[in-house]
Structure formats: C-alpha cells, structure tokens
C-alpha cells in the first residue's frame, strides 16, 4: 500500500493566528480525498503546505514515501534543500482557485512550460503529450489562445492540463470552482470527475458538496485547524458522527 501523499502533525500559524493545530492525513495511490470545512478552518492552508507554498511551522510532509527535509534557520523553519522541494513540486500538480495561468503564454505554451524547462523533457514529446491532454480537457481547439481570451471555465481546464503535463503523482485542487460563474462550474467538475475515474490520486479542497460526495473515496471535515471528522463520503456527507460536521454539511447541502 503506497502513500502518494502523507502529512503528519502539520502545524501552521500566521502571526498569532494558529491555522493548523496538528493535522495528519494520508492519501494512498488512487484515492480521491475531499477536504471540506468553513472559511478559516485551515483547509486551503493544509493543501498549500503540501508543496511548501506555505512552510509549516511543525510536522512532516512526504510525497511517494520521500520526506521533505526541513531545518531551523534564524529561529524559523524552512525546507533544508530547495532543489528537493522544486523536484517534489514538479511531482505534484497544483490547481489554484484563480487559475494563475501565465498571461504572456498561449495555452499550449503554458502547458509545456514546466515539462520542458523544469523536467527538461524533449520539447517535441511535451508538445505531443500536451495536445493529447488539452484534447482530453476539451481545449483541443484553443492551443494558441491566450488566457485572457478564454472563459473562466476554459482557463481552469487549461490550468488542470498544465498540472497534468507534469505527470504528477498527486493532484491538489484548491477550491477549483469557487472563482467561476455558476454555469461554468459543470465543465470543470466534468474534467475532474474523469480524472478521478482514471484512478488519479487527488486532494480536493471544495465547497461543492454534491460533487465531493460523488467522486471522493474519503472525505475530511476540518474545523478550527483540526480534523473534526474523517470517513467515507456516505458517512461524512450523509450521516456525520460529529455535531459540527452535521451542522456544516446540513447548511451546505440545503443551499
């Protein structure tokens, strides 16, 4: 049983605000874990700590069995080896709420950028693979379009393609549909559903409860920087054990 992503006793404060108070979570290969919780519960911070976009104050992160080495310096914790972090980031696909495509590059250029320049794979191979991926996310016609010329849903699908092009060991989604117009949410969820069906390892921070209940193999409910409830989606969304989770899910499903 291989763990694609494992975080152990993760802690993170912003100033005096302790956002993560010791969170442990492991995703086996092929698992789809949805992470839910109210704003400020720490779910985005948890996700961002995995590729060290935020540096945790305590705890460990391991990707495919490899622990990210940390050190203390001037009283602050930081990754000990920047090259290791960069390599591991390349093994994770991160999808942002606000897409964050590179505006000066076309869709195709966005997708091949990191495979060519970070992973140093041959350009021709990357282009061929990028075309396939973009076809799969429904952007086969938009290879040469610039991000500003795409709708939000198209931009997010391009961003997912960019993440996939790294051949990631796990995909991390940080509220991927929260910045989209309601009528564009469906096309992004459709792509994510297909990825889940392929057996990809996915960690999804989301407010789309119906979607999360449907695609996840496991759901995690975060409250006040701790995992309040964790279990199969039928339990977490259908019949939660804790009162707080019951209230939260009830509020969101009835929206």
């Amino acid at each position: 049983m291989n763990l694609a992503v494992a975080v152990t006793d993760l802690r993170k404060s912003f100033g005096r605000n302790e956002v993560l108070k010791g969170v442990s979570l492991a995703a086996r290969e092929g698992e789809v874990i949805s992470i839910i919780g109210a704003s400020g519960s720490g779910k985005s911070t948890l996700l961002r700590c995995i590729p060290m976009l935020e540096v945790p104050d305590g705890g460990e992160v391991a990707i495919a069995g490899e622990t990210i080495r940390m050190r203390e310096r001037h009283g602050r914790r930081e990754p000990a080896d920047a090259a290791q972090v960069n390599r591991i980031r390349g093994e994770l696909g991160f999808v942002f709420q606000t897409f964050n495509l590179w505006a000066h590059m076309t869709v195709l250029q966005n997708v091949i950028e990191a495979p060519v320049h970070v992973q140093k794979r041959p350009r021709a191979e990357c282009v061929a693979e990028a075309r396939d991926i973009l076809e799969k996310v429904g952007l086969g016609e938009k290879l040469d379009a610039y991000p500003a010329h795409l709708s939000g849903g198209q931009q997010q699908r391009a961003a997912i393609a960019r993440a996939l092009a790294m051949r990631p060991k796990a995909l991390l989604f940080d509220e991927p549909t929260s910045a989209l117009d309601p009528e564009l949410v469906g096309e992004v969820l459709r792509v994510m559903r297909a990825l889940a069906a392929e057996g990809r390892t996915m960690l999804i921070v989301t407010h789309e409860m119906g979607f999360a209940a449907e695609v996840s193999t496991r759901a995690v409910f975060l409250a006040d920087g701790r995992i309040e409830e964790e279990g199969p989606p039928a339990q977490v969304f259908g019949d939660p054990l804790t009162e707080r989770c019951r209230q939260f899910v009830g509020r969101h499903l009835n929206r």
Partner: protein
Amino acid sequence: MDFDFLGDTMMKLLAGVPLTLQLTAISVAIGAALAILLAVLRAVSRPGEYFVRFYVFCLRGTPLLLQIFLIYYGLGQFAFVRESILWPFLRQPYWCAILALSLNTAAYGSEIVRGGLQSVPAGAIEAARAAGMSKLLMYRRIILPLALRQALPAYGNEMVIMVKSTSLASIVTLMEVSGISYAIISETYRALEVFLCAGSIYLVINFLITRAVAAVEYRITPHLRPVST
C-alpha cells in the same frame, strides 16, 4: 528665408546623426541591461536593495551634465584608473559620455523595471513556484517577460529622453548634432535657423523611436489585445 543656408546647415548637422544615434543606442543598451540587473538585485536581496536605492538616489539627484564632467575630468585624477586596463577607453570623451549616459539611464530605468516587477501578478509567481521552478528560471521565464512587457511603454519614454541627453556629450568635445550646431552658430551667429534644423532632426529621430517602440509593444502583447481568432 535663406534656403541655401538651411540646406547647407542641414547637411552639416546630418553628419552628426550617426554619433547621436551611436551614443543613444549603446548607452540605452548598456543602461537597460544594468537597469534590469539593478531592479532584480533590489527585489531579491536586502543589502542589494539599499545599494540600489543609494545608487538611484545619487544618479537621479544630480545633473547629468555634472556626471559627465565628473567622469571625463574626474576619473583621470586617480592613478589606479590611469593604470587600469580600462584607461584606453576612459581617456576618450566618447566612452566617458557613454559611461555617464549609461549609468544615468540605468538609474531611471531600474525604477521603471521595478514598477514592472511589482505589476507581475502574485498568482503567476505562485504557479511558477508550484511548478517547481528555481528562482532563476522563474525570473527568466515568467517574472521578467511579464515585467518587461509592462515596463516597455514607460521605457520608450526613457529612450526618447536619452536621445535628447546625448546633446550634453558636446561639452566633452563630441561633435554630435548639438555639438555641430554650436560650432555653426559660433561661425555664423544664426542661432534661430541652426537650432530649428537641429530640433527638427531630434524630432524625426524621436518620432521613429516612439513608432518602433509602439510596434514592438504591439508584437509582444498579443495577450492584451481583443481576440483575433
């Protein structure tokens, strides 16, 4: 109107155009490279930031004329400069003028590039980090391409100012367009005609530069134009 005199003056002044263009092109090229280095240095390191701020403070706060004098008359007073391998260059007014112009425009240019760097969206940088880019790769592929596109219109302004600043090189004996015009005036005392001719030459040069910058700007920003497909 004495068209013969105007024509004659124009021909003499045009002989100075190559030097004016050379001074501009070389110092803008060196200055821009330096400006990018300074702006990045300021962005990535705290001591670097203090150094660049001090550099900009000094070069922006004193007249270019004085800077040219300092380099042309001042450097030669130091024995180590006279003995250095650069002396064959630094003893010539041509290279002194280029050095002063380059250092001066680099100060202004670094502020323009700094503005460009600040305009790069945090999300674009975060995506580059998430993709595993090293700092160097990130600057080369994401941050500078976005920042320089943003900075180019303001930089065009700086180039135009540089064309006009080369006129100060005449005071260290360089016979570019302004230098030639002073010479003609001291022979003929016909300041109006000569300066009108010189002015029109600068106008044409700067018109061409602004058009060229606009064309480059158009070329490198297809992502900011309405959809063409």
